[in-house]
């Protein structure tokens, strides 16, 4: 039996005709963009909220990343955030709104508060809910009607997805991070390569990654079209969870660990699809086009495939190298790469260096806690000295729903997860990369191979 099957089957309430199953949901995260219509649905139909204690709410997509102590100025964003606060008040749900010490990007706060744990089923009206799968749970994004269903019944009616295992073995080159691993995998399997599947990432390369790095991989599993990604929990997972605010304590924790240790795919478990990769083949990665599958190793040139529309949008041509391309913006943030480890990595690299004059370099921490910790560790001073601006937490330029947008036609090397046309603002040109590569680009003002700076 696979890890996925074990958790899924343990949550099936009942079967219904036509093959669908009713799946019980242990934890529901909500945010301001995809919840208002679900709340009003309940209100109009007079349906009570079924299990309010299983919901965690935060404001992240629309929030400004400057002066969060002041009222939001953009009227529609303000209204959406206020609606969330009001709904949470009406239904008695704790809400981590602007300025709250627990506020942050929904996929960053779940793990850091110890709410996300192995063996759970977790949903949120947001596709990158897959991030939580790094803890060995089934976590996936849902539509607003489904948000309402979970509010009403703590269940969803679903067809069970197929399973896929992606194994990565071997040692990574210096300067290659988990972001590069996942961009590499997506470039190999394409943006639709995981369609209909739930992915388990395995192999010693994956096991050797920190929890933060594992989250980056699971986060982007949906960019290959998969329903979600997961990694079997191990000692690192248990150590990460231990002592966190909502984690079980004392004997409860011991019992939980005993159960969590059973959560792995059995030897000989059959997956519908299998892929495997060698870690040594992976270089620092960049995207050159307008979906996350259009990625290359930094030393390679842009392939000549049927991608003219994307290349025109990006202002690139087939056959050229990206190295040396002038970049105007660097964005370090998003639920892919805004955790403390990402910020430390960037700080380590930029310490004693400065960003190139023409670059704007923005760092947006994933949560209030990350921001606080960064300051306690003095990372803010390092960023400031290097000319990087440390903002307040939120989704920010990942999707440009607030004022953090990349101007039309300009290039941004971004640690986020989507390089769609207009994603970071109308006409913005996004190149996805790891935080380490992004930091090096900010310093050089152009695309550069991070390995140049690292001695073996």
């Amino acid at each position, binding site marked *: 039996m696979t890890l996925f099957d074990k958790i899924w089957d343990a949550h099936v309430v009942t079967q219904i005709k036509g093959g669908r199953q009713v799946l*019980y949901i242990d934890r529901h995260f909500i945010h301001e963009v*995809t919840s208002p219509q679900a709340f*009003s649905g309940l209100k109009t139909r007079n*349906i009570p909220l079924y299990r309010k204690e299983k919901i965690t709410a935060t404001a992240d997509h*629309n929030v400004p990343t400057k002066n969060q102590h002041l009222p939001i100025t953009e009227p529609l964003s303000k209204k959406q955030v206020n*609606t969330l606060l009001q709904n949470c008040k009406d239904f008695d749900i704790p809400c981590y709104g602007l300025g709250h010490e627990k506020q942050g990007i929904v996929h960053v706060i779940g793990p850091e508060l110890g709410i996300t744990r192995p063996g759970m089923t977790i949903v949120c009206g947001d596709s990158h809910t897959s991030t939580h799968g790094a803890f060995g749970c089934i976590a996936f994004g849902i*539509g607003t009607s489904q948000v309402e269903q979970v509010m009403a*019944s703590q269940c969803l009616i679903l067809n069970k997805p197929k399973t896929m295992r992606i194994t990565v073995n071997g040692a990574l080159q210096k300067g290659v991070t988990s972001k590069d691993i996942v961009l590499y995998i997506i470039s190999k399997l394409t943006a639709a390569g995981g369609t209909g599947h739930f992915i388990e990432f395995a192999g010693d390369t994956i096991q050797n990654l920190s929890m933060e790095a594992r989250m980056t991989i699971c986060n982007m599993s949906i960019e290959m079209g998969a329903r979600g990604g997961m990694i079997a929990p191990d000692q690192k997972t248990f150590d990460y969870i231990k002592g966190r605010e909502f984690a*079980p304590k004392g004997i409860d924790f011991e019992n939980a660990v005993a159960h969590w240790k059973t959560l792995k795919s059995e030897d000989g478990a059959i997956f519908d699809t299998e892929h495997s990769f060698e870690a040594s083949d992976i270089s620092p990665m960049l995207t050159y086009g307008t979906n996350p599958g259009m990625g290359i190793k930094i030393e390679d040139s842009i392939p000549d495939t049927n991608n003219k529309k994307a290349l025109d949008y990006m202002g690139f041509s087939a056959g050229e190298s990206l190295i040396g391309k002038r970049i105007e913006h660097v964005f370090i943030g998003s639920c892919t790469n805004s955790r403390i480890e990402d910020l430390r990595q960037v700080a380590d690299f930029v310490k004693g260096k400065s960003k190139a004059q023409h670059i704007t370099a923005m760092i947006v921490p994933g949560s209030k806690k990350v921001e606080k910790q960064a300051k306690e560790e003095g990372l803010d001073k390092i960023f400031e000295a290097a000319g990087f601006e440390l903002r307040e937490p939120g989704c920010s330029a990942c999707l440009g729903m607030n004022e953090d947008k990349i101007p039309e036609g300009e290039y941004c090397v971004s640690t986020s997860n989507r390089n769609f046309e207009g994603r970071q603002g109308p006409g913005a040109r996004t190149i996805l990369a790891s935080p380490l590569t992004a930091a090096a680009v900010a310093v050089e003002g152009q695309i550069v191979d991070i390995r140049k700076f690292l001695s073996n």
Partner: protein
Amino acid sequence: MEALQKIKSTAVPIPVENIDTDQIIPARFLKAISREGFGENLFRDWRYEKSGNKVDDFILNNPIYTGKILVAGKNFGCGSSREHAVWALHDYGFRVVISSFFADIFKGNSLNNGLVPITVDDATLHLIFEFIENDPNHVFEVDIASQTLKINETHTLHFDIDEYKKECILKGYDDIDYLLSIKDKIEEFEKQQELY
């Protein structure tokens, strides 16, 4: 959700492939807090110029083409999973979308909102476009119970729909109605579940 059994209507053709949900409803309209009114902004950037003037040659601005059925090119509804795209189509008045391929999540979202996605093969799609081109007043008939799409007196074809979802659409039930009806089973499950 409203119940739907039969739809007899003219159709609006958009023979463009890969229409993504960003085109159906641009991201800037996601800041709304209700489900209503999205129809106004359906295909916003194709329908209106930046100035707010109508784009004359866009099909929804052509009074000759009206109806509850939208016929679109292959891979309709790809991209972002926003349910707002379905709300926009439904709010505008569509109840059926015909294409030769639908993105997975769009299909799921449609069925959850009483918008029936009908997948036909490429040749049939082509034929339907031709029928509309020859006569914009041509009436198509969709019968959910028998899962049939009647193109004309000689062409009637069968389409697939998930058994459970079909019942929901026929009766106007949604998943919530079903889930509330099995509340005791859910409570039973909770009692035996060990949570860590």
